[in-house]
């Protein structure tokens, strides 16, 4: 049995694992997600232990579906947990805004994993505003240990108010590691039953107007809870007040000296009376929060309404940065608050260091796809409309197959736009999981509106970037349920596309030919480039590894392989190209691209 399922003891765990344990202790019966960093390990952990803990868990096809399904579970009286990365909330915003009107019966917690500094994201949007927008309560933990306890509190508050509750983490909570104390579950997952109540659950205009009033009442009740919440506390004494939340609290707590800290764990609605009392007699107040001045603007408003003149410093006064995540160095450089002194950092001589951006792995089938694609496009004026996944790494040389990127599924929709207004060749690139997520509606749009482009579905049989989670196309059973692979080709045809070819990218010549033909096609041409992710095979111990080597006698040192294929397993010693046997997985693509046939399998 996994240690996370024990009912006592201390464990060193990832923030995401602490959150799963919090759900188990809260008696969550239903959980859903679409994988997205930094929230992915929550799903991976639930996939592993959810079934045993009695939690129904699903990888939904996208975040909107995940929230809709969780809403129904919570409306049926069970505790439901749905979680996603920050941009996933954009996809799910539609059901969330109306669910706020309906409310729930069983507790429902919606986790948003924000990513300040955009470590693994396309933007660093601050999802605290979703709580203001939807009038839903919000909790924000500062450490993994606190996250575990706070999940349970979020469910209690959700049930008390009969309202879904946001739970906001950031990368430094999800991917922090800390010690948690296990305690037995408060309740066990149970079967639900949906009690009909059209006035609540069917928001036709007449009912929506009634529910709007109830939502405002719930929001006021939530404020009263916030005023007395054990997660909104004052620590320390001093004439300088610090108002903070989330991981920024840990930096303030450990580095600032002689300050009184108002730590906010329930950040929507804010405890307005508590804040007014806190700032009233202070000499000054500093608001320490990452990203937008969410707390700061509300503190300024509360001060004004209460006739309090205490100066408030933060982003609006230029003392705190608005971009990127905070760290102890940000706290140390504020300049207006005394901080713990540290030692002088080393200042080594400046050296030109090679960059090390994330790259496609050795043996990645996307590399072979891009090689053949680039060759087929040749000197044609082409626009590459790409999507969210490992293949976004095609932005790196030598491929540079990423000219435009917005969001999940965006490649296909954008390709339609390029096709409508330019004479350029348009190539859209999307992964298998992303295609199922939100790639299908824009494909129907393309055939409906007569667009012309090549869509490459790089089908590596997994949601690879986030940790190889299954999706409708994988046919991989998980969590105690059997699934059957949904084939992509018939789905593409059903969208009105006549031109579909499935190819194996490891066959470089065949792939190149398929792309050449597709580029000549008028209308939408779809190439499904299908080869499993070797990392996923490795995980399942299904990867048969052979190793290639370069015959230096045959090699003419043309360097076509390193320059045009650029596999991470290549390295150079002088003019010689060699293959790192620890990295090579034996895909054999290099042997296909070598003009002299110098690459061969090590016997």
């Amino acid at each position, binding site marked *: 049995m996994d240690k996370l399922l024990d009912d006592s003891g201390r464990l060193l765990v990832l923030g995401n694992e602490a959150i799963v344990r919090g759900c188990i202790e809260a008696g969550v019966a239903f959980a859903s997600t679409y994988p997205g960093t930094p929230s992915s390990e929550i799903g991976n952990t639930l996939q592993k232990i959810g079934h045993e803990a009695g939690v129904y868990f699903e990888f939904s096809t996208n975040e909107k579906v995940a929230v809709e399904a969780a809403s129904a579970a919570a409306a049926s009286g069970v505790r439901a947990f749905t979680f996603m990365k920050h941009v996933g909330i954009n996809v799910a915003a539609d059901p969330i805004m109306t669910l706020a009107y309906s409310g729930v019966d069983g507790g429902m917690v919606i986790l948003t994993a924000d990513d300040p500094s955009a470590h693994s994201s396309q933007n660093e949007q601050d999802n605290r505003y979703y709580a203001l927008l939807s009038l839903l309560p919000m909790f924000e933990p500062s450490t993994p240990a606190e996250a575990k306890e706070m999940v349970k509190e979020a469910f209690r508050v959700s049930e008390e108010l009969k309202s879904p509750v946001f739970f906001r983490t950031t990368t430094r909570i999800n991917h922090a*590691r800390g010690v948690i104390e296990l305690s037995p579950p408060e309740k066990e997952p149970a079967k639900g039953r949906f009690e009909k109540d059209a006035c609540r659950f069917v928001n036709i205009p007449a009912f929506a107007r009634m529910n709007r009033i109830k939502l405002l009442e719930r929001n006021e009740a939530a404020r009263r809870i916030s005023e007395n919440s054990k997660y909104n506390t004052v620590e320390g004494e001093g004439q300088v007040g610090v108002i903070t939340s989330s991981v920024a609290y840990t930096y303030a707590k450990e580095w600032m000296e002689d300050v009184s800290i108002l730590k906010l764990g329930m950040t929507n609605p804010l405890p307005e009376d508590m804040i007014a009392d806190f700032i009233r007699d202070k000499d000054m107040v500093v608001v320490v929060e990452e990203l937008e001045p969410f707390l700061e603007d509300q503190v300024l408003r509360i001060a004004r309404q209460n006739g309090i003149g205490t100066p408030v410093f933060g982003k609006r006064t230029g003392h705190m940065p608005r971009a990127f995540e905070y760290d102890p160095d940000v706290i140390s450089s504020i300049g207006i608050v005394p901080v713990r002194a540290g030692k002088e950092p*080393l200042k080594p001589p400046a050296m030109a260091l090679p960059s090390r951006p994330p790259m496609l792995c050795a043996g990645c089938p996307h590399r072979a796809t891009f090689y053949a694609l680039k060759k087929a496009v040749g000197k044609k004026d082409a626009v590459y409309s790409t999507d969210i996944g490992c293949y976004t790494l095609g932005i790196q040389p030598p491929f540079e197959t990423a000219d435009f990127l917005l969001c999940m599924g965006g490649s296909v929709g954008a390709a339609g736009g390029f096709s409508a207004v330019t004479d350029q060749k348009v190539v859209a690139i999307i992964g298998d999981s992303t295609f199922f997520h939100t790639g299908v509606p824009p494909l129907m749009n393309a055939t409906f509106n007569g667009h012309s482009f090549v869509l490459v579905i790089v089908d590596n049989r997994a949601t690879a970037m986030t940790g190889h989670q299954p999706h409708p196309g994988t046919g991989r059973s998980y969590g105690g349920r059997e699934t059957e692979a949904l084939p992509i080709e018939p789905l593409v045809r059903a969208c009105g596309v006549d031109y579909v070819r499935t190819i194996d990218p490891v066959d470089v010549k065949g792939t190149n030919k398929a792309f050449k033909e597709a580029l000549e096609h008028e209308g939408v041409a779809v190439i499904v480039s299908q080869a499993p992710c070797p990392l996923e095979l490795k995980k399942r111990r299904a990867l048969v590894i052979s190793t290639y080597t370069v015959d230096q006698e045959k090699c003419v040192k043309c360097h076509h392989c390193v320059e045009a294929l650029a596999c991470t397993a290549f390295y150079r010693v002088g003019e010689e190209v060699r293959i790192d046997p620890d990295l090579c997985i034996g895909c054999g693509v290099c042997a296909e691209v070598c003009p002299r046939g110098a690459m061969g399998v090590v016997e």
Partner: protein
Amino acid sequence: MRYCIQIAGVGGQGVLLASNVLGHAAMASGYSLAMSEVHGMAQRGGSVLSTLRFGDEALSPLEAAGQADLLLGFEPVETYRMLHLANEDTHIVMNLQPTVPVKVSMGAEEYPPIDDLVSNIRSVTDRLTTLNATELAIKAGKAVAANAALIGAVAGVKDLPIDRSLLEETLLEMVPARFKEINAKAFQLGYETVRQ
């Protein structure tokens, strides 16, 4: 008491395993503990950093620049990139085995000579210990035990507030049973390199 270990390396090298071993050993030593790791996109062969803070009270998963007590470098260039995390009292343990970035293989960028990296570090601190973890691991029986050699090297660092045998036990609990012996040997070789 407060102690901070920064671990710099390349995604896929085993930085996560090393920080996990050190973290469990710190927990078993009875310390309060906070760690941060890099997951996701940055793991695909990019630069990674793990931070480990422990002592009487550790809440923050990140440390300020210059405040590391120990900088463990899995790779020479990555160690150099993270030198600002160290001060002149920081122990620096550096693996000399380079992982060459693709852009270098493609001829677009250059990897600096290892000797230059070492001498430039020595020009600002006298607390650098170098080892070739891969060679030590091969000597122990298998290249994959390079990780164990580096953790052994950490165990050899003066004033490390974690017991050597506890660290070794924690490591051996976390590696596959069939590699225990090789890992124990690599740990010992790493330990000896630093102790000399």
